[in-house]
């Protein structure tokens, strides 16, 4: 598996308090990589480190085979970036913003930029500063796509957009991916959006990567088990028990990770009965994963 983005032992600390600590991240080439995390988890900071906008304290970053931030010119010539907040000069008109951006990208596709402009209903003479949030989002997506990047990094690209605009933006994105087989890294806290789009998922919280795996594995691996007469201890289980909650019907609800069907044999020798295996959607899995990560972190802190 070749990697579009790889970080090893990446550390960054902007001041006291928040830090990115020993981040090891692997984004496979050609993947649609969802970067999930609550607000303030460190997603935007990580993205800025990946793109050379911030300088790491230590560690290694490789993007499209190049070392960052050293090779940022080569990397950014192949990377489309849609930041969290509008970054285009507000005094320029739409046409001027497109013209400025095109000057820096050798693979700029002017015809496609025109098509996208029509598709997104963006008027040439409108000032960027006077565009609505949705129109600004569309313009930033246009700029990122028309440069024909090998890698697209999208930081909360649909945050705050209405459903119609969100659909327009995501359709343009999917059309691009299907034609160019680019790698997409998309950060969001909108779990359902990522569930539909992504084939890889990473979860970040408090500056650490909590999980990184193929989406299917993530969804398959996290289950809620309904257990009757559960054993007192479960540390010898072949799966990870994230939480245990007493059920009203004399049993327990276990939230587990790393589950597969053959593991049901674990219960009978311990006098327990596995009554039901419930599939969780990504949001449930995400929430439970964060909950268990935070309780582990707190337990670690107490020690």
């Amino acid at each position, binding site marked *: 598996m070749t990697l579009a983005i790889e970080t090893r032992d990446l550390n960054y600390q902007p001041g006291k308090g928040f830090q990115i600590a020993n981040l090891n991240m692997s984004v496979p080439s050609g993947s649609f990589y969802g970067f999930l995390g609550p607000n303030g988890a460190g997603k935007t900071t990580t993205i800025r480190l990946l*793109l*050379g906008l911030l300088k790491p304290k230590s560690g290694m970053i490789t993007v499209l085979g190049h070392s960052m931030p050293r090779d940022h010119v080569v990397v*950014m010539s192949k990377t489309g970036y849609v930041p969290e907040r509008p*970054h*285009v*000069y507000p005094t320029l008109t739409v*046409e001027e913003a497109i013209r400025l951006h095109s*000057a820096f990208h050798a693979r700029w596709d*002017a015809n496609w930029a025109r098509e996208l402009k029509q598709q997104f209903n963006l008027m040439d003479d409108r000032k960027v500063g006077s565009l609505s949030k949705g129109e600004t989002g569309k313009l930033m997506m246009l700029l990122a796509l028309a440069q024909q990047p090998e890698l697209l990094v999208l930081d909360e690209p649909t945050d705050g957009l209405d459903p119609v605009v969100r659909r327009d933006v995501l359709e343009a994105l999917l059309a691009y991916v299907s034609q160019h087989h680019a790698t997409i890294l998309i950060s969001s806290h909108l779990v359902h959006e990522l569930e539909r789009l992504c084939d890889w998922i990473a979860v970040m919280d408090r500056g650490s990567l909590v999980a990184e795996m193929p989406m299917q594995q993530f969804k398959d691996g996290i289950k809620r088990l309904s257990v009757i007469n559960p054993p007192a201890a479960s540390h010898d289980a072949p799966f990870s028990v994230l939480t245990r909650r007493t059920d009203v019907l004399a049993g327990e609800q276990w939230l587990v990770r790393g589950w597969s069907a053959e593991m049901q044999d674990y219960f009978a020798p311990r006098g327990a009965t596995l009554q039901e295996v419930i599939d969780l959607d990504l949001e449930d899995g995400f929430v439970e994963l964060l909950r268990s990560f935070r309780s582990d972190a707190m337990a670690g802190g107490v020690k």
Partner: protein
Amino acid sequence: MNERPSQWRALLETQWKWTRGLSLIGVLLGFALPLLSLRTAAGMESLTSFISMMGSWGVAYAIAAGALGLATGVLVWGFDHRLRHVYALALPIERWRYVLFRYGAGVVSLIFPILAVLIGAEIASHSALVPKELHAYTIALTLRFGFAVLVAYSLFFAISAATARTAGYILGAIGVLIVAQVLFQAANTHVDVLSNAIRLVITTPGLLAVFGGRWTLIDV
């Protein structure tokens, strides 16, 4: 407007939108100053008072050059600062080249006010108001004005381009000088740190020496 412009041209066009208003003010001011100074001096009764009046207008040239350089130096980084430099940093261009282009585009916008001083000075010096015994120094005045504008622009471009921390160091250093001066005065010593520091900067070979000295269009 559909073909891809060069990076330099694209940045120049963008920056021109921000600085053209200031450039226009500079042009009007640069053109008017020589004419106004001569007009005021022409009413003087003696040659000595004529020369003295022309010389007193020198301060106006220095202030105009300093203000124009300062405003342009700050303005060229204004929008990058406001957008936290995200757009600029995400462009596939070496950082030094980007800074050079921004600097160069600022210099281009300053050329027009400098030319306006030259044109205004030429028109003034060819008018009948100049006493026959005196000489006009149009080129010298324009060069001095241009040099002063570029020095002020370069200084404030560099300060403005730097991080908030660097700006803090510069302000901190000025603050230390002021506090030292206050302490020396409180201690009744005759040490004048502030005046010495200012003299060091504005007299030759100080950084801002071009702002000192004589700025006059008409002289002996």
